[in-house]
């Protein structure tokens, strides 16, 4: 982030996004396979969640072990409003985002007073409480049996009920999210977040309103997770409490850690790679069902070990490796 040279470096991530958009648009043209598209929908949903968590945890340094709960809040809110109450899909999606944001605001309050592991425990407790709510509030959530038959998204009277349609909707939102988050990170709020992460006293001494920053970042991060939840619910059609439990929150944290704090590209790439891993047979046709089963079985170990290894050996994660590689290349160009 060397600033004065400014506008040129501002463009590079935008170019990357344009390239990504082209790639995203190309996929359905290359393969109309329902399974592939469905897996890529999961990837897209996770990218949205991770973008928000990278903002909160990677940049501002506020750990959240409860992000899956926000996804769940968004998913159940939208599903309930649209399926049970018959509201239009956009209303459901917006309500999901707002309610999740409200949850983020609530969780931001202890964040103001707690740090590090205490905050981790508070967010963990929040996730566990929401899990109990998802399980027990059967009238709204369907309890352990889950909530099925969730209608397809419908925008401006147009029902999006094909695999390609859902895929394009989810990835459209994902790319837009990445664009917005990228812009935020490159401007004043992003710098303020990095300052807060580095040393809160230093940030305060620079006149940064750390209280307001934490609250806003929590709310935005939670809102994105809620939006992802809404998209997931309507894209997949069925949701149940286990999808939004603590294990999933830990996986999100692991993805951001492996991807690298202080970067957006790293966590996003990690999200894509790690979400695809248990479904690798979608991309690599040669893999047998047994191999996939083994990978899914050992998923948690892979995540846990990867997290520990990254933190010990490559603290900057994938993002750090990318930065070093591009710095080296820039050095070569300048010669």
């Amino acid at each position, binding site marked *: 982030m060397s600033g004065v040279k400014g506008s040129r470096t501002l463009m590079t991530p935008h170019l990357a996004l344009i390239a990504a958009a082209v790639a995203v648009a190309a996929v359905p043209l290359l393969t109309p396979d329902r399974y592939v598209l469905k897996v890529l929908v999961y990837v897209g949903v996770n990218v949205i969640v991770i973008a928000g968590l990278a903002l909160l945890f990677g940049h501002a340094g506020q750990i959240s072990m409860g992000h899956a709960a926000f996804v769940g809040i968004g998913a159940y809110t939208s599903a309930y409003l649209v399926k049970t109450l018959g509201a239009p899909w956009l209303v459901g999606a917006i309500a999901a985002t707002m309610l999740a944001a409200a949850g983020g605001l609530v969780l931001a309050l202890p964040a103001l007073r707690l740090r590090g592991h205490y905050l981790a425990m508070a967010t963990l*407790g929040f996730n566990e409480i929401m899990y109990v709510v998802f399980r027990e509030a059967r009238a709204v959530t369907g309890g352990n049996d889950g909530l099925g038959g969730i209608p397809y998204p419908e925008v401006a009277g147009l029902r999006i009920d094909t695999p390609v349609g859902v895929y394009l909707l989810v990835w459209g939102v994902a790319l837009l999210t990445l664009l917005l988050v990228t812009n935020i990170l490159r401007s004043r709020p992003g710098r303020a977040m990095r300052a807060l992460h580095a040393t809160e006293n230093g940030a305060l001494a620079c006149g940064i309103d750390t209280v307001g920053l934490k609250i806003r970042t929590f709310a935005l991060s939670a809102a994105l997770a809620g939006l992802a939840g809404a998209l997931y619910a309507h894209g997949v059609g069925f949701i149940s409490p286990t999808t939004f439990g603590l294990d999933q929150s830990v996986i999100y*944290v692991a993805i951001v850690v492996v991807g690298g704090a202080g970067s957006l590209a790293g966590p996003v790439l990690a999200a894509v790679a790690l979400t695809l891993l248990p479904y690798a047979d979608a991309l690599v046709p040669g893999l047998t069902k047994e191999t996939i089963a083994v990978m899914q079985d050992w998923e948690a*170990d892979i995540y846990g070990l990867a997290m520990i290894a990254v933190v010990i050996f490559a603290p900057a994660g994938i993002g750090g490796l990318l930065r070093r590689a591009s710095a080296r290349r820039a050095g070569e160009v300048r010669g």
Partner: protein
Amino acid sequence: MDAAEFFQYVIAGLKSGSIYALVALGFTVVYGATGIINFAQGEFFMLGGVLAVWFHSLGLPLPVAGIAAVAATALLGVVFERVALRRQRSANPLVLVIITIGASMVIKSLARHLFGPDELSLQEFTPGPSIDVAGAAVERQALWVWGLTIVAVLVLAWLYRRTKLGRAMRACSISHDAARLMGIDTARVVMVSFGIAAALGALGGFAVTPLTQTSWDAGAAIGVKGFAAAILGGLGNPVATVIGGLVLGLLESLSVAFLSSTYKDAISLLVLLVVLFVRPQGLFGKARRGKV
């Protein structure tokens, strides 16, 4: 509700409260020595039960299997500290949190692979009918739970007060720098603390398995409750932690008695959040201005 019924709930609360106290002591011992929260503490509890079942299935008599399970878990705690945490001592506490979270993921998953996904059980230590105390039925195993908890607490107290190691641990909990100036090997204290914490958790797991069964994923729930207990009493203060455990157990049990059993698990979570929001130093901790 009559007195006997009420007493039954109290007994139940003290029973689970003892287990929470053991797990909570594990949190407190590690926190006192290192200032971090070991997110893998719940898994130590799980290993106590799971390993005991396995050792017993290999033919070891029950008490030996239990001792072996506790010892093995303690060893794991020590190894974990040496391998994963030792070098990161000066790192950002967030880094240490992540390492313990990663470790708990791996331990949990390995347990599933090695010992299977099903529930595992142990016979009671001294099989026999429940004992009648003032109209309430007290399982014999519950007596074992209390007995072992009391022994563990007494041993810990003796350790802290009467041994050089205990004094070193207390010094570390005040300040690592001061302790080092006094010539204390703080690295060794940290390592031993992890071993003790693991042993305490495992003891709880072993003692309670005949009552509640155990399985590879028993760690997460108990970990949260143990932490809630520790923080309710006051993290870093062993006596307060034990009280916190018993209080939490009672709160849970009484909520089932007077409210409903549906949200029983949410009680400890609510306690956790309320304490963190309102009084992070716990019931017996000293208030500190500024952040926790």
